[in-house]
């Protein structure tokens, strides 16, 4: 496995996990219920991503793994985490207002907030990593 393949695998799996979280949150909001589909589906995507990325790292070997987690990767990771922090704070405010005004039930707000916070980091990382690849 090459560095580009390992990076592509990581981007694809983290992107899928992020999209599963967004899907869960959107459906929760649209249906105003905290369990629009099985709660373990986004979690399973996350665990599957972790397992497959780890397997990819072992298949690629130490040198390729180190190249795929170099200083640009760490900078991208930090950038995504920093932006996701502010997105998460905004989401807290948004869902607090929606729940406080009884637009959404509190359990729905908590479910959507939790999955969107995870999705924010994952999708921001995938976006910045993809941009750097262009």
């Amino acid at each position, binding site marked *: 496995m090459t*560095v*580009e393949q390992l*990076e592509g695998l990581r981007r694809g799996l983290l992107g899928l996990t992020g999209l599963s979280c967004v899907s869960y949150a959107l459906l929760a909001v649209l249906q105003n219920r905290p369990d629009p589909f099985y709660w373990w589906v986004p979690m399973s995507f996350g665990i599957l991503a972790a397992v497959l990325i780890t397997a990819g790292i072992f298949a690629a070997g130490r040198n390729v793994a180190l*190249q*795929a987690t170099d*200083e*640009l990767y760490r*900078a991208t990771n930090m950038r995504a985490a920093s932006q996701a922090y502010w997105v998460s704070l905004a989401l807290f405010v948004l869902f607090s207002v929606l729940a406080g005004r009884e637009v959404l039930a509190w359990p729905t707000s908590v479910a959507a907030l939790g999955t969107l916070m995870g999705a924010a980091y994952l999708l921001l990382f995938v976006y910045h990593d993809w941009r*750097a690849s262009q």
Partner: protein
Amino acid sequence: MSGLLTSLKDKRTAAGLTQAQLAEQVGVSRKTINTIENRVFVPSTVLALKLADVLGVSVHDIFQLEL
């Protein structure tokens, strides 16, 4: 854009290396070399020294402050 000018691409091609070959020799991804050459990413001091070492030039031959 950073405040750092770079002639990494010129030095790399003069050394007869592709981005992938240079990346492998300094232990980073090709994407990192590409973003440095395009002035999207500013490398650390350690990476700048490694690049200079592999290309057989001084760091100042590759990177200059944009004044």
